């Protein structure tokens, strides 16, 4: 069995030795270099672009502007194509834009012979604008008379969906209800993969070839072909190893532009690598969402009616658009079921960088608001927030009609129990109940909800190819991509397991090349282990059948008495190894009678989804006068079904927890209100977590095999980012009694909130009381 083992990654050796090749490592050093000229206003029209000085510079090959690009709007979101137009992504931007909608929008491109020339020429391009008023705030953008970003979206509302159930207005008339309401704010943050987006493009064999750091090669091929109005087969995308993506590279970022650039210089090789600064403001972000939540509960805690409103900041272009806020809203009625609901989610354009997919896709935002709100309810009722969750969070057997998901096991309670025990939660909760002094500790908990993949909203389909080599090893090809999470390794484990060959006999072809690789939509929605698993399982069975048919001829035994075990043809009646798969493969391929190159390839269309649940426990130490919250301990517990590789699963969880810590305490994109320009577009001023910002991270699992899955798995890629920030927030509430309803919870935020709640005065009073008491009376 290859499944369930802590198998070393297939790419570990190449990555620790520096041999693994990423996009820029593969690009010829004499490639032409492209540099983008970005807008220096937040909103307006480009009147003129003076390229004359740039064009005069030696080494400049071409300068192209927003007046040169094809007039074919594109939608950049990394979603599968939809056969029905109504379900397609909004197409609202050109390769370069005359109507610029944020500070940093793409206006022109310089192509030069080297980096230095490209930089100088880009600075020499003079752009004249007709400026328009701009709006940065999501609620202001919705008001009548606010600056309009896209004509067809009135009041800048890109999307508005609702979930209504029961009768809210009637239900709240019940006497004795307790109303809890609050606004909860989440920040604009960035993915910060260490490899910036990079691609290079050239023409060969009549095709446009783009080698790119992307999570979604097959989707980028489609978007690129659409942007250039080319037949889809005329575009070839190659995806080597990539230096992280986290959803940012689940968008066609600059690949379509890069493809167009090579066509403008006769198919010559053009590299387009953007800087860290550009990655911050000119790629994608996580939607900042502002929530207003209201709950009416009975004194016993039961929910009577709930209201949810979300205002999601889309930035300047649609990208993944309303999908994020809609997903966040979708979790709300499911997590704590309630009969009377009014839920509305709005996604609104503003003149800010474009929000897209980011690890968690609306759920980190929704969990921050929802799980902070649960603690606020528990506080209002004066009950233990952990016990409150234990009582009211989604019960076992809960079924959801749209996704057809069922909570088969009692995942939430099992995860909470496990985490509570490891964390020593109850003891700490008690010990920190009555603290005095400047420095206080607190513990908090939060749960999360997650789906697996995108069915039934979009297509879920995965294809796999297996090719048998003469030595009995196989090549495994998937359209699903390795982006660091360890997909290649888990795919190999699954293939080895079902086929019956040793793990080392599976050669995974890590690179996707849309000319060669079977179709797969790529790395997003935490879908690949689940979706890819079906295709691998099905294809392995087909390959095994073909092998055993030949084995019948070669061993003179009926195929139903044969099996493939650990790379050998085994007679099941007595367990005798009759021949190695290597010998079979060689004999069959070179046979003068029945030669066959044994391969299998198949597509599995998945029409199911799966719930993936878990929770976070956080312990903080808050220095009240210093307004500083320090994370002491963080534990995540996940039920993502059967673990294919427990070590890789833990590693996934660590990374997600780290992102959650940044989200809770440190990270935020800041903007100049006067210009709309991003202020902290670098890794010094944008506070990405370093080794110093973390306590040790604990990742635990409850393994309830998912019954709908080929290998018992369900999503894990994104879930670890979802519940950390609210657990930290709830721990700060426990430590200080002050509810912080926004992230990141920086000293600035704590200072303001402590002031509002008179926390400094109360601290003084508490200490004076202490001193007034006789010696020994207040000692703990």
């Amino acid at each position, binding site marked *: 069995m290859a499944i369930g083992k802590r198998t070393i990654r297939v790419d570990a050796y190449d990555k*620790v030795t520096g041999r693994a090749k990423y996009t820029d490592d593969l690009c010829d050093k004499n490639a032409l270099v492209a540099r983008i000229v970005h807008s220096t206003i937040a909103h307006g029209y480009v009147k003129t672009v003076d390229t004359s000085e740039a064009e005069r510079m030696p080494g400049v090959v071409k300068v192209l502007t927003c007046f040169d690009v094809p007039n074919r709007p594109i939608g950049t979101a990394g979603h599968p194509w939809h056969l029905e137009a109504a379900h397609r992504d909004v197409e609202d931007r050109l390769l370069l834009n005359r109507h610029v909608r944020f500070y940093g929008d793409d206006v022109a491109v310089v192509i030069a012979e080297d980096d230095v020339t490209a930089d100088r020429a880009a600075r020499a391009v003079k752009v004249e604008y007709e400026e328009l008023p701009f709006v940065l705030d999501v609620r202001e953008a919705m008001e009548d008379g606010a600056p309009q970003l896209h004509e067809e979206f009135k009041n800048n509302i890109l999307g508005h969906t609702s979930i209504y159930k029961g009768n809210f207005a009637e239900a709240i008339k019940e006497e004795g209800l307790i109303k809890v309401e609050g606004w909860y704010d989440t920040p604009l943050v960035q*993915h910060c*993969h260490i490899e*910036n987006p990079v691609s290079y493009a050239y023409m060969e064999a009549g095709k446009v070839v783009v080698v790119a750091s992307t999570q979604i090669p097959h989707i980028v091929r489609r978007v690129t072909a659409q942007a250039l109005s080319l037949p889809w087969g005329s575009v070839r995308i190659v995806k080597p190893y990539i*230096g992280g993506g986290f959803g940012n590279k689940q968008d066609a970022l600059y690949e379509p532009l890069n493809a167009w650039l090579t066509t403008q210089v006769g198919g010559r090789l053009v590299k387009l690598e953007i800087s860290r600064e550009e990655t911050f403001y000119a790629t994608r972000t996580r939607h900042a969402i502002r929530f207003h939540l209201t709950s009416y509960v009975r004194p016993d805690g039961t929910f009577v009616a709930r209201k949810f409103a979300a205002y999601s900041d889309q930035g300047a272009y649609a990208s993944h658009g309303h999908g994020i806020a809609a997903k966040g809203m979708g979790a709300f009625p499911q997590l704590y079921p309630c009969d009377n609901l009014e839920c509305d989610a709005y996604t609104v354009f503003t003149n800010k960088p474009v929000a897209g997919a980011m690890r968690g896709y609306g759920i980190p935002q929704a969990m921050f608001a929802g799980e902070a709100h649960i603690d606020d309810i528990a506080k209002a009722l004066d009950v233990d927030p952990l016990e409150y969750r234990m009582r009211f969070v989604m019960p076992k057997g809960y079924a959801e009609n749209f996704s057809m998901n069922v909570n088969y096991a009692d995942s939430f309670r099992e995860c909470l129990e496990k985490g509570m025990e490891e964390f020593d939660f109850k003891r700490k909760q008690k010990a920190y109940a009555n603290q005095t002094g400047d420095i206080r500790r607190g513990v908090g908990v939060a749960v999360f909800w997650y789906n697996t993949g995108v069915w039934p909203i979009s297509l879920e389909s995965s294809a796999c190819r297996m090719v048998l080599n003469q030595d009995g090893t196989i090549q495994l090809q998937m359209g699903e991509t390795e982006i660091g999470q360890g997909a290649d390794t888990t795919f190999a484990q699954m293939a080895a397991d079902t086929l019956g060959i040793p793990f080392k006999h599976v050669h995974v072809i890590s690179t996707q090349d849309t000319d060669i690789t079977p179709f797969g939509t790529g790395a997003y929605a935490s879908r690949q282990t689940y979706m890819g698993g079906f295709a691998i399982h099905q294809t392995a069975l087909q390959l095994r059948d073909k092998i055993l048919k030949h084995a019948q001829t070669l061993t003179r035994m009926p195929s139903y008495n044969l099996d493939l075990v650990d790379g050998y043809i085994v007679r099941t009646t007595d367990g005798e190894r009759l021949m190695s798969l290597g010998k079979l493969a060689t004999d069959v391929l070179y046979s003068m009678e029945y030669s066959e190159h044994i391969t299998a390839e198949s597509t599995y269309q998945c029409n199911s989804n799966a719930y993936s649940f878990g929770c976070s426990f956080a312990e903080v130490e808050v220095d009240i006068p210093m307004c500083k919250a320090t994370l002491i301990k963080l534990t995540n517990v996940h039920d993502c079904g059967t673990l294919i590789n427990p070590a890789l699963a833990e*590693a996934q969880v660590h990374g997600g927890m780290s992102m959650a810590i940044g989200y809770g305490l440190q990270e935020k994109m800041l903007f100049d209100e006067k210009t709309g320009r991003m202020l902290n577009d670098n890794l010094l001023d944008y506070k990405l977590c370093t080794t*110093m910002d973390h306590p040790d*991270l604990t990742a635990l699992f409850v393994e309830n095999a998912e019954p709908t899955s080929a290998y018992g798995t369900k999503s894990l890629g994104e879930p670890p980012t979802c519940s950390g920030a609210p657990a930290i927030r709830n721990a700060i509430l426990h430590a200080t009694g002050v509810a912080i309803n926004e992230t990141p919870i920086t000293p600035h935020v704590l200072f303001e909130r402590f002031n509002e709640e008179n926390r400094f005065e109360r601290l003084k009073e508490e200490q004076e009381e202490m001193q007034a008491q006789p010696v020994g009376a207040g000692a703990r």
Partner: protein
Amino acid sequence: MSAPQYKTVNFTLNGVETHKMIDVRSSLMDMLRDNYSLHSVKEGCAVGECGACTVLIDGEVFNACIYLAVWVEGKEVITTEGLTGPNGELSEVQQAFVDEFAVQCGFCTPGFVVAAEALIRSGKTYTRDQLRKNLAGNLCRCTGYENIINAVETALERHHAAKVNAKVE
């Protein structure tokens, strides 16, 4: 615009003396990547923030992106490629990174491997907190640093255990 100026740089690279005519404006990172195809030296920010381009210069940790190539004249430079043995044997740090699952996307890995190598070569022991402090110049978005710290701790333990064993023998 002035024409580029070129200069010969003589230095030791991964144990081998070498010289190269380079554009004086080149960073060490550019020279190592473009002139020597040492692709382990990664660019994540180009301004000394992320540590993906970490190399050893005369045993000290530097960001190659903000170090001019001409400054390595007469010095000894080591990249991740130089830590691997002649037959592809992994160094103690590299092996520990493999064993402890400290690798995900792998883009920050070579920089971390080099930064950790400096700690091994110091001959000192480090607490976990000291390791965190010493590795704070390298950013990673995939791992939460947990397995990276574990790997460096493992490499140090193995290294010091091997030293003790060598003395006993």
